């Protein structure tokens, strides 16, 4: 198959799954007594509707190629960073540093993806921003909780911008024999990790009994975790034809990124717990905020990027 045919086959499959999901959601909602809808089913249908929008956006981005994917993830980073900083106790003295995070650091990071300068892309935020941003904050002269403030800003940039930018950075990897098809690697990563989230939700709702981390997240269960990770790994193996991997390698990659995604979800839940909120925001109906949706991708993307880069690039 050519890249175009593979993309069409992939999106055809996704649309079929979404259509089936919408149909199931509709039938479940109709089974409820009139005037007394179940909140779980209402939320399920809101989630499915939001998935249609998200798949449409990703479809447009993939159709536009590299610029589309870079702009989409830059906007996702913007929304994610906005949610993160909103829940961070900032002070007046952080204003320049915060404005620079949004309007200087974020665009530069994605510009580095655009010009494919891997050397600077991979150290810009961890080294240069890490050193420069505290200076900007220090020059404002407010020392209250200084260490905490700069640490939280750096962490927010690492999570919302640096890690997430590794998704479009997949387009820059020189993989022999895979030219012109790299956008499928983005599709593989996003699809497997998001499918793992959905499958964990489905397995958990159907068979969940034993809470895996009751202090962090009341909805995550052992059954949901095992069922979700294993079925998403099987899905990843079945999608090996999208990637430069063999079926076995595709399964191993899928296993690694789904486990990273699951643990990333726990980390982000711990922060939400500490801040006393259920969701990061309200951007995506039924799901919460951008960070609620992409938390697993954030933790999976850099690992997926580097494993692929180490073993499959020249």
């Amino acid at each position, binding site marked *: 198959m050519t890249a175009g045919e593979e993309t069409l086959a992939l999106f055809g499959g996704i649309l079929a799954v979404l259509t089936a999901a919408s149909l199931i959601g509709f039938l479940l909602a109709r089974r409820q007594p009139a005037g007394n809808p179940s909140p779980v089913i209402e939320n399920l249908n809101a989630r499915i509707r939001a998935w249609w929008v998200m798949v449409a956006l990703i479809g447009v981005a993939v159709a536009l190629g590299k610029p589309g994917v870079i702009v989409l993830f830059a906007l996702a980073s*913007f*929304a994610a*960073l*906005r*949610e993160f*900083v*909103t829940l961070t*106790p*900032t002070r*007046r003295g952080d*204003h320049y540093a*915060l*404005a620079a995070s*949004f*309007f200087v650091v974020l665009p530069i990071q994605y510009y580095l993806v655009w010009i494919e300068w891997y050397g600077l892309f991979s150290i810009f935020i961890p080294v240069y921003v890490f050193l420069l941003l505290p200076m900007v904050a220090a020059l404002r002269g407010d020392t209250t909780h200084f260490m905490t403030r700069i640490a939280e800003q750096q962490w927010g940039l690492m999570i919302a911008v640096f890690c997430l930018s590794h998704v479009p950075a997949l387009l820059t990897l020189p993989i022999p024999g895979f030219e012109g098809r790299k956008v499928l690697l983005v599709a593989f990563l996003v699809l497997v990790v998001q499918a793992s989230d959905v499958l964990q939700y489905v397995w958990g709702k159907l068979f969940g009994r034993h809470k895996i981390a009751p202090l962090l997240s009341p909805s995550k269960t052992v059954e949901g975790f095992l069922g979700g990770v294993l079925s998403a790994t099987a899905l990843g193996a079945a999608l090996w034809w999208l990637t430069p991997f063999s079926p076995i390698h595709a399964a191993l990659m899928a296993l690694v990124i789904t486990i990273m995604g699951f643990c990333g979800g726990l980390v982000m839940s711990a922060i939400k717990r500490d801040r*006393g909120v259920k969701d990061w*925001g*309200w*951007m995506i109906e039924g799901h919460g905020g951008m960070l609620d949706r992409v938390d697993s991708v954030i933790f999976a993307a850099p690992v997926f990027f580097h494993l692929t880069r180490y073993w499959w690039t020249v």
Partner: protein
Amino acid sequence: MTQLQSLTPAMTASIVTGLARLVTGVRGNWQGSLPDPRPRIYFANHRSHGDFVLIWTVLPRALRRATRPVAAADYWARGGIRGFFGRNVFDAVLVEREAASRDKDPTLPLLAALDAGNSLILFPEGTRNTSEAPLLSFKSGLYRLARQRPEVELIPVWIDNLNRVMPKGEFVPVPLLCTVTFGAPVALAEGEGSIAFRERSRAALLALAPNDAAAP
């Protein structure tokens, strides 16, 4: 030309509310009341020049044009861009803040706007709050309006986080999520005095603030 003149403020208004959404992702929480086309007074905390725009952004589009901010004449009635926004885009009802420069009762234009079917957005603190306190004490305007128009609903509106987006004296906004929370209407009780009412309506507004808002 007249068409263009009337179109420009409407377009400018859409651009302003669109920008407000882009930067703040603002969400309206209709906690104690629902949108209603009857004349109302929305009274809100005031920390930023953008406060009014944020309330406007979360109102249903159909209610926006008829909902007018009460603004200080000494600031918004000047010429140039400020005057264009104050008069044409926001259609503000202007009041004289300084008692010395008043030649008539400052509530008269407000009552006229209510009688014409408009809703008002009022900041009863009378000025932007730049202190550490979450909310300043109220001026008497709200009480006087409540006495003269007892049938008009008074809705407390808490604007959260906008002061972090654009603190006083800063020029670049930091994008942060904001919320606008609408509470249950507060009515003037039988025989209630100005001071008691001002305290009670202030408490009703403060009760809408999220827990962390009180702490700096």
